[in-house]
């Protein structure tokens, strides 16, 4: 289990820049379905994520929204992690093991936006539950559009009150003697074998969007987040010495910040847009990353638009990352009081390529089926490849490190 997505507590800042709801549009219904699959050596994971959202704008001053989404997770993840030094001392042994994973996350959300002149205020709430994790989060944001609406400024804040299931450890046991959670049986009940740890997440975001010319806009976003609580994968153990494996142990506090610059150019002669995005990130665990993304979207006819995109991502590892805490020469060996088997905390880079097509049906007269003013269907596919420079499975590089993401979306405007 990972905390990163949990950490993305809702601050809706980027959506809807330079677009306002059409006065005649009363309601919008969206349903989105994505399928994620990866099967690198040592693990495999498939996640199906359906989502449904309804947004109603009864007056120009008010929008109400409600939604539901789920993650249906199936696969196997690394349960016990060891590195090449340990493997070399145990030739023939399977020092890296996997465990099957089945989980279902359900999430319900609701919110509102109030508008007056050039100012809008948005609030929202999200409740999410899965076998081993519960999340309550609220978010608020305020936006203004001064300078004849060529400029948009927005600030937002969100807070998560989350709970994570853990194994009851022996009283007073040092972290080197903690044992991993076997499964989610008994979680969030009065079971004497289960404990509940708490996580608080504060997220701040500010953005500045600017229309520079009729065909050129930019957006600058600053995001900061403070997380306090149990952030390890409770199911994962790491071999930290001969004969000793302990539950993954990472710091309880993590502060993160990122700056993102986006730029959109419209290429009028070919009715297409070229979009660029650059992001720099750092956190107190020592991870620094850079992300670059380019998208090209073009109209093919009046109703169909095709998008092609590419993305590159590069990160350093956490300060306490090591591929083998049981020994070896640097960069192997113990790294202070923490240990992790999470490949997302190791240094790596990745690439992504994808396409998306969206077909919009807008009736010239009247409404579709008598009720819809517009309908939209979208299909997308992305492929991602990972290159881990240090993470291994007992010394064996992670082969077949590819992920595939498919998406289907349907929207109807009433």
């Amino acid at each position: 289990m990972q905390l990163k997505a949990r950490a993305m507590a809702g601050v809706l800042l980027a959506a809807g820049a330079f677009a306002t709801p059409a006065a005649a549009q009363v309601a919008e219904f969206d349903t989105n379905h994505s399928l994620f699959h990866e099967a690198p050596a040592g693990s495999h994971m498939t996640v199906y994520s359906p989502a449904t959202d309804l947004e109603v704008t009864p007056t120009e001053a008010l929008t109400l929204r409600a939604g539901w989404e789920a993650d249906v997770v199936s696969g196997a993840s690394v349960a016990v992690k060891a590195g090449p030094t340990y493997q070399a001392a145990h030739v023939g042994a399977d020092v890296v093991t996997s465990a099957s994973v089945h989980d279902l996350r359900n999430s319900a959300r609701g919110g509102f936006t109030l508008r007056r002149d050039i100012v809008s205020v948005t609030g929202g709430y999200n409740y999410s539950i899965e076998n081993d994790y519960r999340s309550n989060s609220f978010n608020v944001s305020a936006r203004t559009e001064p300078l004849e609406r060529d400029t948009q400024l927005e600030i937002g804040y969100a807070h998560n009150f989350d709970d994570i299931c853990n194994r009851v450890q022996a009283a007073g046991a040092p972290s080197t003697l903690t044992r991993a959670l076997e499964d989610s049986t008994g979680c969030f009940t009065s079971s004497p074998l289960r404990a509940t740890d708490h996580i608080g997440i504060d997220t701040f975001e500010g953005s500045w969007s600017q229309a520079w010319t009729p065909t050129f806009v930019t957006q600058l976003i600053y995001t900061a987040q403070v997380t306090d609580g149990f952030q390890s994968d409770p199911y994962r153990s790491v071999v930290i010495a001969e004969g000793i494996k302990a539950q993954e142990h990472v710091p309880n506090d993590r502060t993160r910040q990122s700056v993102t610059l986006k730029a959109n150019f419209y290429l009028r002669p070919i009715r297409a847009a070229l979009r660029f995005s650059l992001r720099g990130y750092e956190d107190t665990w020592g991870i620094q990353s850079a992300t670059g993304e380019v998208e090209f979207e073009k109209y093919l006819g009046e109703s169909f638009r095709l998008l092609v995109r590419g993305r590159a991502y590069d990160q350093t590892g956490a300060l306490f990352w090591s591929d083998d805490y049981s020994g070896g020469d640097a960069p192997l060996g113990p790294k202070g009081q923490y240990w992790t088997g999470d490949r997302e905390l190791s240094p790596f880079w990745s690439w992504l390529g994808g396409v998306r097509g969206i077909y919009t049906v807008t009736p010239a007269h009247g409404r579709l089926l008598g009720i819809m003013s517009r309908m939209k269907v979208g299909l997308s596919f992305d492929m991602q490849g990972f290159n881990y420079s240090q993470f291994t499975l007992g010394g064996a590089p992670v082969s077949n490190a590819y992920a595939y993401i498919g998406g289907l979306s349907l929207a109807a405007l009433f």
Partner: protein
Amino acid sequence: MKLPSVRPCQLLFAALVLVGAPACVTVRAQQRAVLADPVMQFDSEPHAEAQRVHALDNREGSFGGSGVTGGGCGCN
């Protein structure tokens, strides 16, 4: 190589130019058709994009800038 010295007032002037520049820019209402086009939005498909970012963030050590809503993980 010696870098040219920069006085505080020059820095302040540069900052004022940077902050004040948007005030010099005006895209008139009748010129906004392209800006309102879905292909020029920073997030024209927010729900679908949120799902994609959710999947990407779960495989990386960083986050931010995408403005997606959250609550729970489902990533394991």
